[in-house]
């Protein structure tokens, strides 16, 4: 079952105007009629959890966790429907940290060995970004369901390969996009579904994570034991999903065109067309997208400005929602008849052991729960492969645009035919 992408509407063939996808036509028509809720229902929007958690199954998913850095921050061992069967990292210290974190004795020296374990049903891939596609394909090839850290991939060829393999195998893929389960994004999703925004005319999203030259953060992220890591010179627009999720995770629109301007830092040895493995001269990217419903969307990813955080602001015809920002501005919901207030706490939807704060806006327990329950319930997860590629691929094209002085480029569609 692929709940994210069954239209289920009664539109007649030929009713979709030229230039808009069927999904975009539904969204545009619904928005113009003030029927956002209906359009969301038509798209069978997943990602809205039941109001309260109840254990509905005794089944326990047997998972392998790979990547003893970011992979330490999830809650697999605390979920009542999950068991950590094995862990793996190439670096012994990180492998030991995974064993300690998940109280798991079984450890493998590599993912390649872990996927041979027949007990493991699913693999949590929290390896470096350039390896995600290759590692996910390896897992799918061995019959394992996969949850992967972001981004899904770094090239369009990888995107195509992921789509082909996922559809061949029928296995479950989920991308662990944290912004999707930030409280602001969850609230925006609910308000949008309930029609509070009216037409979502415009959204701005940004991911600011400075690691300037000489900083401990650069030392920590870009190097390991003196060697460069995959983050060294990483093009910001190849890491767009913390931003793009804020729009796509709310409206399910698709980004169809982009113009991106990059910033070329002067005097920073990490950036330059011959300075890193990516041939990347940009430390920041500011992209302007157009959605398949005709809405503009601004998206920034910056590695060296004096600001911090992952946030968005959503502007509809009837309401606006602002995430708190590193400048001190508070979260605000502005809508007629809806008082300014703090955001709802959706924690009652989680098993009690998972009702804890976490990095990335408290999103990690939700990601854990959604992946586990999608397997238990035999349904597609909220951020399935099609959503993941819709978050990821626009950044790949934006990066291309930044090399062409912001030329507007079309974005390939990886949704099912």
């Amino acid at each position: 079952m692929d709940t994210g992408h069954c239209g289920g509407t009664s539109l007649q063939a030929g009713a979709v105007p030229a230039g808009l996808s069927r999904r975009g036509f539904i969204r545009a028509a619904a928005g113009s009629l003030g029927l956002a809720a209906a359009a969301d229902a038509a798209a069978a929007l997943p990602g809205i959890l039941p109001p309260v958690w109840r254990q509905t199954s005794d089944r326990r998913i047997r998972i392998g966790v790979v990547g003893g850095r970011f992979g330490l921050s999830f809650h697999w061992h605390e979920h009542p429907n999950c068991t950590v069967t094995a862990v793996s990292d190439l670096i012994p210290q990180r492998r030991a940290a995974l064993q300690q974190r998940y109280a798991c004795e079984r450890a493998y020296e590599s993912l390649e060995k872990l996927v041979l374990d027949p007990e493991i049903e699913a693999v949590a891939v929290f390896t470096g970004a350039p390896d995600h596609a290759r590692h996910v394909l390896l897992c799918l090839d061995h019959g394992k369901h996969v949850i992967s850290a972001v981004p899904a991939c770094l090239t369009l060829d990888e995107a195509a390969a992921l789509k082909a393999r996922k559809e061949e195998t029928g296995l479950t893929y989920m991308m662990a996009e944290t912004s999707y389960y930030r409280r602001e994004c969850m609230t925006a999703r609910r308000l949008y579904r309930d029609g509070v925004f009216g037409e979502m005319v415009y959204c701005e999203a940004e991911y600011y994570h400075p690691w300037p030259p000489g900083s401990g953060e650069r030392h920590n992220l870009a190097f390991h034991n003196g060697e460069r890591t995959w983050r060294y010179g990483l093009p910001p627009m190849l890491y767009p999903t913390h931003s793009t999720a804020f729009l796509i995770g709310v409206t399910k629109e698709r980004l169809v065109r982009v113009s991106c301007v990059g910033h070329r830092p002067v005097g920073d040895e990490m950036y330059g067309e011959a300075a890193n493995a990516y041939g990347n001269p940009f430390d920041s990217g500011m992209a302007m997208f157009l959605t398949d419903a005709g809405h503009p969307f601004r998206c920034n990813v910056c590695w060296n400005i004096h600001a911090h955080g992952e946030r968005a602001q959503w502007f509809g015809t009837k309401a606006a929602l602002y995430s708190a920002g590193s400048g001190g501005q508070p979260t605000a919901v502005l809508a007629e008849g809806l008082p300014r207030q703090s955001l709802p706490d959706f924690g009652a939807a989680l098993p009690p052991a998972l009702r804890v704060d976490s990095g990335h806006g408290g999103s990690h327990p939700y990601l854990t729960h959604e992946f586990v329950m999608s397997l238990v319930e035999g349904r597609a997860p909220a951020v399935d492969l099609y959503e993941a590629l819709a978050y990821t691929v626009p950044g790949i094209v934006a990066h291309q645009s930044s090399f062409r002085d912001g030329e507007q480029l079309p974005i390939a569609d990886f949704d099912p035919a």
Partner: protein
Amino acid sequence: MRAIGAIAGVLACACCGGDAMGVPTIHPGWESAGPVEVLSRTVFEAGDAALAVAPAGSGVSWRAVVEAGPYAGQAGIRLTGSDATAAVLDLAVDGSDAGGVCLAGARGEVLWSDSGLGSLLYQPVWLEAVLDAAAGVRVQVLDGDATALLAQSPWLPVGSDLARGIDGMAVFTRGNTARFCLWERAQKPLAPLTPDNPTALRVPRAGDDAWAVVGGGAWRWETGRREVLLQTRPTERTTAFMTPTAPAEGMWRCTIRLDKGTCGGGMVVHGDRDLAQGFLAWLGGSYGNGRLMVYQYPLKCLWSGPDGIWHWDTDYVLEAEIRGGTLRARLLAADGAGILAESPSLSLDGETPVPPGMIGFQTWRGTGRFGGFGAGGETGPAAGRDSAQDLGAGWRALAGDWRWIGPPGQTLRQSASEGAATALAPMVRGARGRFRCRVTPAGAHGVSLLFQHAENGQDGFECCLAEDGTSLRTAAGKVLWTSPAVRCQAGQERVLEGIVATDRVRVRVLDAEGRSLCESVDCYVSDTNNERVGILGLRCRDGAAEFRGWEFHGEP
């Protein structure tokens, strides 16, 4: 989503509203999804939209989980008679600005309400009605886990015929969207009737003229002891006044804590209900990293200190003093031991004399808690004022025997032989960056660097060097990482580091020459750490140690 034939427990619908573009629905405007069966009213309907359900079980209690949507209307459970959707009793939460819960009769007459419950946007709550042929009906609201009582009525006489005539249940909306689940009947109510229930603790209560609230919000006592006053609803500006008139001169003091996101808060002296007179000792400026200020009503700033003084989720003592025609405000640490900010003596000679008025507590765009005053109207001394020992050079000892070796500010020795000894340096503070100290154990079984430590001790981290190894712990004691590689040994100087990088923290232990001996992995923690300013502290367990070289080096 399931079609109507698959829905168990749904009986009938009394509503109108359009179908959602061909989506499978159980009735127009209603959807159902599982595996926890959830009914959703997805279409806004200004009028009534009710759907009869068949609750499992039997007994005196009728209840369901209700999650109200974002509109200014109602969502709740309806107890019915022979007509499966016609109301006999409606118990609903209200999505309007005021929020609250309301029990209404068949003609819509309000039988009981509690507006102090506040807005429940997308918050699942249990709504429960308990029927008794003799006593009538009582209703209550609990959180989604049915563990916390949020509101409760007394027994309400409704007549034995009415109570006996109820034999069905529906869920309904009126001017809102909503979701419903877990509808059921039971013999035992979710909570017994209790005199100190949240409704009874609201401020002000009906008939209680000791308090007056101006500007809305949701004020209530934290417990039945009526010592700490909470303002729990984010509101533009709300003030809770103790209505007795205060003396013309005196010192007034309260504890104050502003919750995350709150833009400001403070204490009003000699105020009135029109907010037209009096003074305001105020925590304002930058949200969550602000300043002490003094205002006079109508709002005019008399004095403003520097930013960086108060922080969210941190307890303080706030003082205002009027004597001899002058006004002074002061902000102290929670234990009352250190003055964090103090206004000069502000002369009131040039001002129009302010008649004595009320003492009040105020929040602006947010929520907070106030205490340290008597419920009868007199503000009193803050608790624990002298519980910490001032060591000088910006240090405070919370426990243990701490003394300077040589000039103050260079080397601290802790000599107590039993228990945990803690000293804090509130002036050594920061968010992202590297906290560090040097330590030489001299009999201690464990030594620690506290970093990004909240002054109230409720947040922060600890780099702990013990006899069984090194660990990274939270202030609550949760172990994030351990390693047996480096242990606490008498006479061996070590450098302890705590490194805060966005929502990741890690610790490192170095030898006296700066060579790294062990380093933890990055441990992901709450990203509230990105901006949360904490202080440096030292701790030793069961013995002596000497500390020196403490510092914080910030990161951009």
